[in-house]
């Protein structure tokens, strides 16, 4: 009997805001424990929460990016449970009226087909504190408590670990490019739990659902799901039952194990939070947010390929960073050779930035100047080699290439008469090389070429030099 898997993913994303969800403490990562706290996020007696505007906007934006229905009326609920990482022993979350409902993330399958993975909902809540376990005690750091967390629940639309991997990758890309979150899993900015069941192919009824926790990387999710599907399938094939339980993935051993079951199932006792007012999202608000909407990465990639005639690789590199893509587009807009611009950007531009440890924002080269540089090389006013020197000068001074070429007198010499002069001089000064060439050593011409370039202080048009040298040496 063949079995198929049904997978759903629940992703928690830390939103990229400056302050926490309900108080003004900073969201900075990696600071000393309990230094980013205040009475509100510590759950002190008498404090009250106040919503972070940016967190709400980013959640709505996410919904718009994945085609969700944004709720006209959304509210907050208290989710009660006791745990040391819970400052109030209830979490402020959203239960029945989340900010976003429905939506989908498109993934690419092998063979080029696409599949839409449904999203059930996306809602906002506050993050919990961090526990550190010692011998007989645990220590709690509340720096993270209260950070804005967006929970995205997918439909159980994935049928393989690869699809789950693709979904997470695509989702990450959307969130990063949209400025919603940095999605760094190592920093806990993106966390994933999975629900997976297995059933005989063709059966409509779902199998027993198992929840998998503690998958700390996207590849880890794939590995965990692969293991779990295999485990459940093997059990069913043997005639055993799969129990509905929560299991913990251990990446080191490559297995899932049952987590300690609690005496009573969680009764979260959700009720509307009386301290917080509802969010009423108007059409105007949505229209304003739509303006901020970033083109989805895949669409942008395709557009770059088509619009600028770039190969897929180039498009991929340029689109990966929104700022870089914007820079490129400004340069390409004034150029007749967008492919050349792409080459310059991917090699010289990014190379120099890395070397100087600068960001694009800190670079003084105007995108339009890059287009100008390409035009100078394409037009033959300077050689590609000289172009690289000019680029360095542009990077250091911010001057336009035209100005630099003029100031330094770098205009390529393409006057055949002048070049002939240099060629004659080089031939005259290097009889041995001439003899070598005539004796059949084709390579000797390169030395002579080099000499001509030296004499012309690099300004001679190398192509013409080659042509003229060839003519003279072959005695035409």
């Amino acid at each position: 009997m063949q079995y198929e898997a049904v997978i759903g993913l629940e992703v928690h994303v830390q939103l990229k805001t400056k302050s926490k969800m309900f108080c003004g403490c900073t969201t900075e990562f990696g600071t000393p424990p309990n230094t980013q706290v205040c009475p509100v996020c510590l759950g002190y007696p008498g404090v009250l929460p106040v919503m972070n505007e940016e967190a709400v906007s980013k959640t709505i934006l996410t919904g718009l990016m994945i085609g969700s229905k944004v709720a006209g009326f959304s509210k907050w609920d208290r989710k009660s449970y006791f745990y040391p990482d819970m400052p109030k022993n209830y979490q402020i979350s959203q239960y029945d009226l989340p900010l976003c409902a429905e939506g989908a993330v498109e993934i690419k399958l092998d063979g080029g087909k696409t599949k839409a993975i449904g999203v059930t909902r996306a809602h906002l809540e506050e993050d919990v504190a961090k526990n550190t376990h010692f011998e007989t005690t645990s220590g709690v750091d509340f720096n993270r408590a209260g950070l804005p967390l967006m929970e995205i629940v997918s439909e159980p639309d994935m049928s393989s670990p690869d699809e789950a991997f693709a979904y997470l990758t695509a989702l990450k890309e959307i969130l990063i490019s949209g400025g919603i979150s940095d999605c760094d899993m190592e920093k806990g900015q993106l966390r994933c739990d999975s629900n997976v069941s297995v059933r005989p192919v063709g059966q409509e009824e779902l199998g027993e659902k198992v929840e998998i926790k503690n998958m700390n990387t996207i590849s880890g999710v794939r590995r965990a799901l692969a293991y779990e599907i295999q485990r459940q399938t093997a059990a069913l094939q043997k005639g055993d039952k799969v129990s509905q339980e929560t299991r913990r993935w251990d990446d080191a051993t490559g297995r899932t194990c049952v987590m300690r079951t609690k005496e009573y199932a969680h009764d979260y006792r959700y009720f509307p939070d009386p301290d917080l007012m509802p969010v009423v999202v108007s059409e105007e608000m949505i229209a304003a947010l739509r303006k901020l909407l970033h083109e989805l990465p895949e669409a942008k990639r395709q557009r770059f390929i088509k619009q600028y005639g770039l190969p897929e690789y180039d498009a991929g590199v340029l689109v990966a960073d929104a700022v870089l893509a914007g820079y490129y587009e400004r340069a390409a807009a004034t150029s007749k050779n967008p492919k050349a611009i792409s080459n310059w950007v991917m090699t010289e531009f990014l190379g120099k930035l890395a070397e100087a440890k600068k960001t694009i924002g800190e670079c003084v080269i105007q995108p339009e100047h890059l287009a100008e540089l390409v035009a100078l090389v394409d037009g033959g006013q300077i050689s590609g080699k000289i172009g690289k020197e000019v680029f360095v000068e542009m990077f250091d001074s911010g001057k336009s290439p035209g100005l630099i070429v003029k100031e330094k007198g770098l205009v390529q010499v393409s006057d055949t008469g002048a070049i002939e002069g240099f060629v004659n001089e080089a031939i005259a000064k290097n009889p041995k090389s001439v003899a070598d060439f005539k004796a059949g050593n084709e390579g000797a011409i390169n030395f002579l070429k080099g000499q001509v370039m030296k004499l012309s202080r690099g300004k001679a048009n190398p192509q013409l030099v080659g042509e003229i040298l060839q003519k003279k040496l072959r005695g035409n």
Partner: protein
Amino acid sequence: MANDTNQFDVGYVAHLARLHLTETEKQKIASQLKDTLAYVAKLNELDVSKVEPTAHATPLANVLRKDEVRPSIDRATILKNAPEQARDLFIVPKIVE
């Protein structure tokens, strides 16, 4: 409304609330709350099928705060109030997963 007050398991509810009660306390509370629950059952007399629950006491919406950082509180102050602290962390007995 649930009229079966014998379903009212004080022990279970006390566990939900993480409230340790002695047997005497459990019995006393159970008996007192039995009376209270019988009393609140009078709410069943009303037809509320067409009534909306009061969601909020004031008709406000979109009470939002600008995403700006404000100073946090001095760590020494809050650790001073902690029943047990070490290594700048709030210490609790080991959490059994």
